[in-house]
């Protein structure tokens, strides 16, 4: 068992989410940086479906009452080099500490965090406030049980640095035009891709708000449509909202472009004040980008 001494800023239990329930208003969810989460499970030898801790900005303090192998990936933490399987001795305390660069760090424990499945997943859903064992982020006093979702032996070597995604801006985020690119007058897409957008403090698992200095996209609300993670919505005031994994499942703002799957994990690590530039790509480049990242891992398409 693991006891939470301090929950950290916003630590939740996540796995690969619950895609396919959007018609009920339920977002796909799962680890916001699905790549880092997947590597953490791989390093400790877990099954890909094992749940782990997603730490945000500042991680939790945990007391282990068993010997365990763990791995920390994603944003860089004070407490360890990360990206490798390490032992934590029974009775010892693990303090994740501040996360920087990057915003989210993942702590996988060999065997996985064992909480009940809700709608097929152990993930906490921010939009619906359910799942993740406690229906909320971790708090002091919570007790985490360890599961048995083990697939192979822990890795003996650190994860290669050249098989990791960047953790610092400025960010180049690749998008596919549409579905509502036609709703904008003139060369809106070109102007968007020429703009250095800036992340506001309003960023979470649901979506990220961006300021677009100098870019005045003229638009109005549209009839509500179903939306996906990565949708770049343009609000009537001309600002942007990029939807992320716990996104609302429908929306009434036109979507000028959609972030490709391979670049969604980058937005999980971007911080307020960071610069974001969008680059328009086609589906061939999107597929190539995904193959590159998934080739490092045995990721599902």
């Amino acid at each position, binding site marked *: 068992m693991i006891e939470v001494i301090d929950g950290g800023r916003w630590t939740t239990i996540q796995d690969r989410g619950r*895609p*396919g*329930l*959007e*018609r*009920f*208003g*339920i977002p796909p969810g799962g680890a916001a940086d699905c790549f880092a989460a997947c590597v953490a499970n791989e390093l400790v030898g877990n099954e890909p479906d094992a749940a782990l801790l997603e730490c945000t900005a500042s991680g939790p303090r945990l007391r282990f009452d068993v010997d365990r192998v763990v791995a920390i990936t994603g944003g860089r933490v004070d407490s360890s080099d990360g990206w490798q399987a390490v032992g934590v001795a029974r009775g010892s305390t693990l303090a994740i500490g501040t996360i920087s660069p990057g915003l989210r760090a993942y702590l996988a424990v060999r065997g996985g965090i064992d909480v009940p499945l*809700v*709608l097929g997943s152990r993930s906490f*859903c921010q*939009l*619906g*406030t*359910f*799942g993740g064992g406690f229906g909320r982020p971790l708090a002091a006093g919570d007790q985490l049980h360890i599961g048995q979702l083990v697939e192979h032996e822990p890795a003996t070597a650190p994860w290669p640095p050249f098989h990791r995604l960047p953790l610092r801006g400025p960010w180049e985020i690749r998008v*596919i*035009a*549409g*579905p*509502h*690119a*036609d709703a904008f007058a003139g060369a809106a897409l070109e102007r968007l891709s020429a703009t250095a957008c800036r992340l506001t403090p309003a960023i979470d698992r649901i979506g990220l708000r961006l300021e677009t200095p100098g870019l005045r996209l003229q638009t109005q609300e*549209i*009839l*509500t*449509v*179903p*939306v*996906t*993670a*990565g*949708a770049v919505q343009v609000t009537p005031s001309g600002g942007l909202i990029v939807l992320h994994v716990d996104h*609302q*499942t*429908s*929306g009434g703002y036109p*979507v000028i472009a*959609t*972030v*490709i*799957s391979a670049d969604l994990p980058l937005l999980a690590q971007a911080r307020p004040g960071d610069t974001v530039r969008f680059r328009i790509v086609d*589906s061939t480049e*999107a*597929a190539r980008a*995904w193959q590159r990242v998934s080739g490092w891992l045995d990721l599902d*398409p």
Partner: protein
Amino acid sequence: MWQVAPAGDRALLITIGTIIDPMLLGQVLALDRALQDRRPKGLLGTVPAYASLLCHYDPSITDAGRLEEFIRPLEGTVEAAIPSGHVVDVATRYDGPDLPEVAVKTNLAPAGVIEQHAGREYLVYCVGFAPGFTYCGGLSHQLSVPRLASPRLRVPAGSVGIAGRQTGIYGVESPGGWNLIGRTALRLFDPAADPPVRFKAGDRLRFVPVP
């Protein structure tokens, strides 16, 4: 003509229309059923709303072009009908915090607002936004009021709201900008139930005032 546009590298958005219309919803639901009856290779799932359908696909099996080729010929061949299920009663206590303001804006007495809201059947056009949120169309012209200038940070589950020509029920506690006129004890989202939500697009409901 249906518009087919990519929504990223794993989804395609089929837009059938741009207005709230039972016939357009009928087409969306007919297309949805057709794709479930005869599922094209690589289609993972669909999400209907009002006058559009989002199709999630597995890019290692199919692509946007092939999926569009499959869907295009269905235009005009799927049988669309105005949805007509049985009408579900939603027992509603009309004590919402915005009821007095809505009455002022619509030049009605609060009782008049209630009478107009409860006096008709509504068609569910979409379950979306947040888990279980039920969007209904067909609100009386007279009750049409804009969204709140600044949304509430917390709207309790079961709240009944109105905005424009729509009325809706919040499935979970969430932020929200609709004018709240009442509340129902009916549970719209239950993660342990199958399906986890009470309503789906195409259902019909009626608000029944309770003390």
